């Protein structure tokens, strides 16, 4: 990127993607048994089906790696941290460990990935922060992983994918939420699927374009589950951050859920507040992508009814915008200022503590 983008200097970017680590990256963080297992079972490349490495979605043309290049902290600094003048960027590693079926492999891959992130990324650039990646196959060990890393304040949240095995509101996941809330860590839900289930109620779509267009459904399902199962009632200070979810579908969900709740709230008596209120209170949303004509964005922000929900994100290296146009067009000035820094600091208590 050529131009220095001064108008967002000092911003906090809540969604950037480091490389997905290969086996060679992780071996130093594994014991002998797992080193042997990784080699014998040929566990190496685990890129997610949701993000085929060469797909246009997965990397902006000028952020694409040439043969032999690595997506390392230096490259990330050159592409986004320096030109945008970022104060912090939060690494969300789309690790295969998030979705592998075998709980032992999942737990081990996530643990090694987190250690690799700390050593190879967080140690390399003081502007970087990171999400703790966890395998949800065994929520107990996921909670243990949160506890294990909680002392390192550079880990600012816990992350999973938008489509998994069970809706995230289910009580089986609550040990993770308990640990996260105790340590001031929001839960990030990032776009993507483990493909445990068809991505639509009518099976698998033919194209990545269609699959990706449908991602808001997964997010909406998770939100509805978190509300209905009572997660927000049980964990009143826990926040969920939607990453790469899109933004513009949220008002329609708020309106619909509040209306449904007025009609059938006797089914979920632990839900004491209107779902729209709960969503504004507990959800934060990364601003890329924001799917709407620029002329309508201000109306959608009105509909959202909150200037605290939106967080700045480039979603580097995923391709949502070109050049320095990282802020979606059409946002009101006051909101632009809030979402660049203030909203992120309010969402991530650990950022303030380490700044």
């Amino acid at each position, binding site marked *: 990127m050529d131009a220095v983008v001064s108008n967002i200097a000092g911003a906090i970017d809540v969604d950037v993607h480091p490389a997905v680590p290969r086996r060679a990256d992780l071996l130093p963080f594994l014991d002998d048994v797992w080193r042997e297992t990784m080699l014998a079972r040929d566990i190496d490349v685990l890129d997610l089906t949701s993000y085929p490495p060469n797909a246009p979605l997965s990397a902006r043309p000028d952020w694409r790696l040439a043969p032999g290049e690595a997506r390392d902290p230096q490259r990330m600094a050159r592409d986004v941290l320096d030109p945008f003048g970022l104060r912090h960027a939060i690494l969300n590693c789309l690790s295969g460990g998030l979705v592998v079926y075998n709980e032992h492999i999942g737990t081990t891959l996530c643990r090694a990935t987190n250690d690799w992130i700390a050593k190879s990324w967080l140690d390399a650039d003081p502007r970087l922060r990171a999400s703790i990646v966890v395998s949800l196959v065994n929520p107990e060990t996921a909670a243990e992983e949160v506890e294990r890393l909680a002392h390192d304040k550079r880990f600012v949240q816990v992350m999973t994918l938008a489509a998994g095995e069970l809706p995230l509101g289910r009580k089986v996941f609550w040990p993770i939420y308990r640990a996260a809330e105790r340590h001031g860590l929001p839960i990030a839900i990032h776009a993507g699927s483990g493909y445990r289930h068809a991505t639509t109620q009518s*099976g698998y779509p033919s194209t990545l374009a269609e699959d990706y267009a449908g991602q808001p*459904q997964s997010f909406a399902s998770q939100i509805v589950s978190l509300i209905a199962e009572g997660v927000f009632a049980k964990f009143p200070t826990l926040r969920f951050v939607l990453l790469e979810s899109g933004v513009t579908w949220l008002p329609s969900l708020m309106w619909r859920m509040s209306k449904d709740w007025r009609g059938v709230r006797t089914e979920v008596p632990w839900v004491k507040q209107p779902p729209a209120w709960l969503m504004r209170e507990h959800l934060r949303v990364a601003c890329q992508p924001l799917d709407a004509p620029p002329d309508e964005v201000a109306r959608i922000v009105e509909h959202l009814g909150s200037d605290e929900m939106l967080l700045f994100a480039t979603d580097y290296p995923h391709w949502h915008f070109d050049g320095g146009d990282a802020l979606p067009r059409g946002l009101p000035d006051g909101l632009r200022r809030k979402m660049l820094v203030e909203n992120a600091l309010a969402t991530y208590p650990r950022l303030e503590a380490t700044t």
Partner: protein
Amino acid sequence: MSLTLEGRPKTQRSRLRIVDCDIHPAFSTRTELLPFLPEKWRTYLTTYGARLPEPFVGALPYPRMTPGNGMRMDSWPESGPPASDLMLLQKQLLDEYDMDYGILQALGAGPTTFNLDLAAAMCSATNDWQLAKWCHPEPRLKGSIQICQEDAPAAIAEIEKRAADRNFVQVAIPPRAIEPAGRRRYWPIYEAAATANLPIGLHSAAYGSHTNSSTGWYSYYIEEHHGFAHALQSVVSSMVMEGVFERIPNLKIVLIEGGFAWLPPLAWRLDKQWERMRDELPDVKRPPSEYVREHVWVTTQPIEEPEDPQELLDVIRWVGADRLMFSTDYPHWDFDDPRYTFKVTLPGETQTAIFGGNAKSLYRLD
């Protein structure tokens, strides 16, 4: 009583002409459909039941909040379930709101039962039943041709059999299917509907062969109820992105009982993917939002209710006032009463179009 723009007494000029695009006629008894079926399937149904992809025989997977699977408490006739009695339906709905027409959405196992031959027989029987019990005695009621989309030849035969009968105004299929709606196995059905100049109505469905979310089964009815809209969203995405509207330019679809505020954001999002991954979508020649704007109609219930009712006017502007069609969902609990459906004042022309004009044009009524 009659509706007027500002609640004035009825006059010929101010009377709001209503078409209700979502009425659920019911069987008076569990065996009411049997006489419309061939002997073979009467016996089968009695012995094995209509086997469906859900855990229970004859009960919904997510119990509703009111008796009769979520009915309006005041809609029970002296005998039988709500909307099983024509006289009460006339009194409580058609006459009460002085409706010009009501479009029947017969819900039932036919399109979703595992056995395709039974499916075809049940759909055909349901269509005969719509005529006999509802459309013939009450010409204001118009039927929807129920078919099972998993068996294209049988579905097409049923469409062709009914196409000339103007008691039927659309073809009805559930939005939850074995494959996404735009896949080629379904194209011949859409072609048959388009040839017959009949829109395809897709009504939210309680049964499906895949999980009701991409992340597993929901626990609660409040979740399931919201998830109905997702099935409709996937229909739009799939039909646009597979190029169905490019192949069948006069195909029209109606999305029923899923609300509508989600449609503009979906269209914008499809546009974005099309711009970025056009090489993956060779059959999509124009921005997806253009196909949506031209080929997709939506019914209003359950209407989204912003805290600031004025905000709904933005949504109507985005969807297009010529694509929204009023519906009540009678006799279900979340019935939208035409007097209170819109909490914001609609411009006169918009109101006329949404409450009846659009449906009359689309369904060629009058």
